[in-house]
């Protein structure tokens, strides 16, 4: 077990021990560079924690950036560049997972929740006037009510 942990640690080290570099192959055409950057932001730096290759100093990320730039320069469409990556690394490389049977909940869950929740809120808000029944006040409560109304009227409507 100890060996495993040590190994994991060393493994992480070899991947992360990298310095702050500057890409030398940036595309001269700002529009092309912007397109490349947009694609890079979609791709996971596979050896980092949830980072895109656009902002990672890992050397693999650097290599992948170079590939993206090369293909953008060659005029390849976005979809083809993305396909190049997924054929090698699978959907794992995409930070925005594509719609697949396994990601249905991810993509449609929010909508389903909103519909169900919206329905519940609608019923909650609509039903109230019919169901709530007020009990008449007794004398003591009336007295306290008067007092409260007197001092609280000003604050009504100003709650944070």
């Amino acid at each position, binding site marked *: 077990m100890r060996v495993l942990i*040590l190994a994991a640690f*060393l*493994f992480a080290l*070899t991947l992360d021990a990298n310095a702050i570099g500057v890409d030398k192959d940036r595309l001269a055409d700002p529009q092309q560079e912007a397109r490349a950057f947009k694609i890079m932001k979609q791709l996971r730096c596979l*050896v980092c924690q949830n980072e895109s290759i656009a902002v990672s100093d890992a050397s*693999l990320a650097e290599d992948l950036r170079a590939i993206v730039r090369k293909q953008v320069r060659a005029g390849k469409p976005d979809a083809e560049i993305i396909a190049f990556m*997924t*054929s*090698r690394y*699978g959907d794992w490389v995409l930070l925005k997972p594509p719609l697949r049977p396994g990601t249905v909940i991810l993509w449609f869950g929010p909508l389903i929740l909103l519909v169900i929740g919206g329905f519940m809120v609608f019923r909650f808000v609509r039903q109230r006037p019919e169901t709530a029944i007020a009990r008449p006040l007794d004398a003591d409560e009336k007295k306290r009510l008067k007092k409260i109304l007197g001092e609280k009227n000003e604050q009504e409507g100003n709650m944070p």
Partner: protein
Amino acid sequence: MLIRRFLPLLIFIGLFVAFMVGLTLNPREIPSARIGKPVPDFSLPPLEGDGVGLSTADMTDGDNIIIVNFFASWCGPCRLEHPSLMKLAKLDGVKLYGISYKDKPENSLSFLKTLGNPYVRVGMDLKGRNAIDWGVTGTPETFVVKNGIIRYQHIGPIYDVQVGELFLPLVKKLRQEGPS
């Protein structure tokens, strides 16, 4: 109404069970995008000046099972898995090839000289471009290939246990399949 009150509990139980199932499934193979696909087209220069490099043609070898290991002298875990690789190379019907990843040739050479050379041959991937075609994310990584088709991808170091419990049965199984 009753369901509504139990809903949070049910959702939580669902998540909880999913966690439990997931954790007990361990260990298992993580299918990679490359498994079942042919090896990439490649041709790498040799490590030694006079030797022969490594190319796609080497990935088909009759009944033999090809194992390709990405390594580098600067990678700690590679050092850690090295003794196990020596054992892996001795398995029946296995040809172990090495690909030195982003490493200076002289460093790779002295690495193999000191620790022993388990590889039949070594190709050099100086810039790491070839590794990307394999879907490699870092060293060490190991592929099991038969007839030019990738059958298994191992991420991270290989230990003795895995040589015996993972690679040996896999190699046996693949060899039984015949040359197809």
